């Protein structure tokens, strides 16, 4: 079978099926899983940590745990994306606790992708908005920040967030509501500067 055809066939498979293939030695399955998940968990870690280098380490570690768990993965018991988010949250929490970092001091390191060719006025405004939001997120308590990012940037549902954070749905609703109120206060003075 030609390689392109094989890759195309694998692209249509579920995460569970790809993990099973990887566990049996299929390198192409690993490449597809990496393409599906690495960017998302890297971006998520970067928003939680506000530090690209640390986000890379966390994303690599989360993926490494995925490779390790592949032979024991039970299809249908959990969504791989939810499992990866949970691992990433826990790794970020561990780093934040151990380093006693002051997140606000690392704002210049947010994971916003840099496109040097796009220095238009609109792109500059977009970056200002993203930086302002990132700075405001950094002022939130960890759990509120995690819930707000998962809900409003990653686009997860409240039950999915509850599974990631291992709390009840009501707790998720409370965390996101309090987080959004705090963000509104933190950004109150920047409405005009951000063109809102």
């Amino acid at each position, binding site marked *: 079978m030609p390689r392109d055809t094989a890759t195309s066939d694998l692209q249509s498979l579920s995460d569970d099926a790809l993990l099973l293939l990887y566990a*049996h030695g299929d390198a192409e399955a*690993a490449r597809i899983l*990496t393409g599906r998940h690495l*960017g998302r968990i890297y*971006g998520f870690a970067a928003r939680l940590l506000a530090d690209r280098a640390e986000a890379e380490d966390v*994303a690599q570690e989360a993926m490494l745990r995925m*490779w390790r768990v592949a032979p024991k993965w039970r299809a249908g018991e959990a969504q791989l994306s939810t499992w990866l988010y949970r691992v990433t949250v826990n790794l970020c929490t561990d780093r934040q606790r151990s380093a006693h970092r002051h997140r606000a001091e690392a704002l210049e390191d947010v994971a916003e992708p840099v496109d040097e060719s796009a220095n238009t006025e609109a792109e500059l405004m977009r970056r200002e908005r993203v930086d302002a*939001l990132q700075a405001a997120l950094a002022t939130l308590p960890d759990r509120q920040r995690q819930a707000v990012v998962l809900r409003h*940037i990653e686009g997860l549902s409240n039950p999915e967030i509850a599974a990631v954070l291992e709390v009840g749905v009501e707790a998720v609703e409370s965390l996101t509501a309090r987080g959004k109120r705090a963000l*509104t206060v933190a950004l109150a003075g920047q409405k005009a500067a951000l063109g809102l």
Partner: protein
Amino acid sequence: MTEDDLESLFATARTPAVQAPAALTARVLADADARMRPAAPAPQQASPSRPGLWASLGAVFGGGGALAGMVTATLAGFWIGFAQPGDLGAMSAVLSGSAAEIDMMPGIDALLDETP
């Protein structure tokens, strides 16, 4: 700052999707390769072995049970043909009239003799 303003900021942050740096992708794939079990070799096609004699015969006669029954019947027939009943000749002589008498109880005289 209204809730709509906040949603506008969220929408800005959602796009474009963050791409993982190429070096990170390379490290992750190297991890995957390092921890990947070698692909299991394709199972070799087992050469079809010739069925044994009894298996072949059993298949012809409808299974091992049927074959065993047939062997038993053959042996029984052989034995009946080989071992002739002992008094069959005397019975034939009486029936054909060539014998004057037939002693139906050959041991009874000894029992009736009361001589000590």
